[in-house]
């Protein structure tokens, strides 16, 4: 059941991002919905589910848009794992730590993907800093808001 849920979430996130970028192309510069879903899922479920969902989302994104199958999966999977681990160790209350974690997860994912590609012999392409910070801030806002809502619902 959890596998089906994860697969649906994965497909939904990618579909959502594709619809959004098809309707409003600039949204791709503002936030990355599949990554937000990975971060949210990892914080909510823990390191292993975060790793698996991140890996699955990354692998599909690699197949659709990537240059090396697996590079995005390594980055998203590792970020899912690390954020999931942080969620088990840290007490995250209020929107700001969540916003910070989502933004940090985004930056880490981009850096890890570029580093993985370079490690596998591809040319190191440093992503434009302004664009990277914009997506990190956008993901932080969207992810932070989602997680804060979730926390409020779970509060007794």
């Amino acid at each position, binding site marked *: 059941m959890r596998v089906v849920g994860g697969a649906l979430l994965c497909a939904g996130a990618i579909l959502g991002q594709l619809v959004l970028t098809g309707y409003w192309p600039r949204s791709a510069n503002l936030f990355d919905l599949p990554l937000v879903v990975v971060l949210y899922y990892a914080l909510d479920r823990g390191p292993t589910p975060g790793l698996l969902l991140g890996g699955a989302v990354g692998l599909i994104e690699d*197949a659709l848009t990537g240059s090396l199958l697996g590079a995005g999966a390594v980055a998203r999977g590792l970020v899912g794992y690390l954020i999931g681990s942080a969620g088990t160790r840290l007490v995250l209350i209020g929107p700001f730590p969540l916003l910070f974690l989502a933004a940090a997860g985004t930056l880490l994912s981009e850096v890890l993907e570029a580093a993985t590609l370079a490690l596998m012999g591809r040319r190191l392409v440093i992503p434009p800093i302004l664009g990277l910070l914009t997506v990190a801030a956008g993901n932080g806002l969207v992810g932070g808001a989602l997680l804060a809502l979730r926390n409020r619902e779970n509060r007794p």
Partner: protein
Amino acid sequence: MRHTARGGRPAIHLVVMMVALFSLMAGQVRFGRWSRVEGLLLHGASPILRSADAAAKELHELASRAAGRESPGRLRELEERVARLEIEKQRHREQEIENARLRALLDLGQSLPIPSVAASVLSNAVQGPAKTCLINRGTSAGLRPDMAVVNSQGVVGRTWTVAAGIAKVQLLVDASSGIAVLVQRSRVQGVLVGRGDHLLQLRYVSTLDDLEPGDLLLTSGQDRIYPKGLPVGVIAGVSESVSRQRVVTVVPRVDFNRLEEVLVLTESESSAQPMDFDP
């Protein structure tokens, strides 16, 4: 957060997954692209892509309809009529632009001495680390990897992974893209590589070669992917690096942010003949 470290030993799961993914990547690097695995994933994801494309079009339609439906009384009625006419006018303009674009593509298709297949762009990933786009034609239309993709402005890239009904195109600006070119004016040859941003760099040219900003670069046909004579880009700047190597920056002819329709050249072995591209 409500969970604890569930699922047994997360660190072992991480190691297993990383080993699997790095093996997958090493396999691709060592033995070439695993187009079958990629093709299967691409084929599996194509319903998501097609649904996303249809949903985005539907959203556009709904938004244009909703734009003509507000405000009270007579004024509202008039405003509605004006809005509808505006939308109609906009749609006609859009159709005119589309017609012009398709006509240019059709003219190009007829002027090209090579058989070609027209395709629509489903999604365009120019923001990520890899610069690619997906088109709605695949093996069923006769496409194979490493076929040249062009539009009325010039060279777009080459087909990369091809599945039934869908194909991934590597754009010229991708960091791992390379194309053999020659300068139209001086006939100097070189290799044009993507920088991973929106520009290209001309390599394997000497400091003595005759290159000037504004020079047009055409495909030389040496790479056996792109037929000779297709416009690729224009030299934007020529400078020297600290190691006294020539740095030639090139602006691609194609606007990769506005790709909508493309032609895939289904045969690459062809000699130069004059082709009608947009100025």
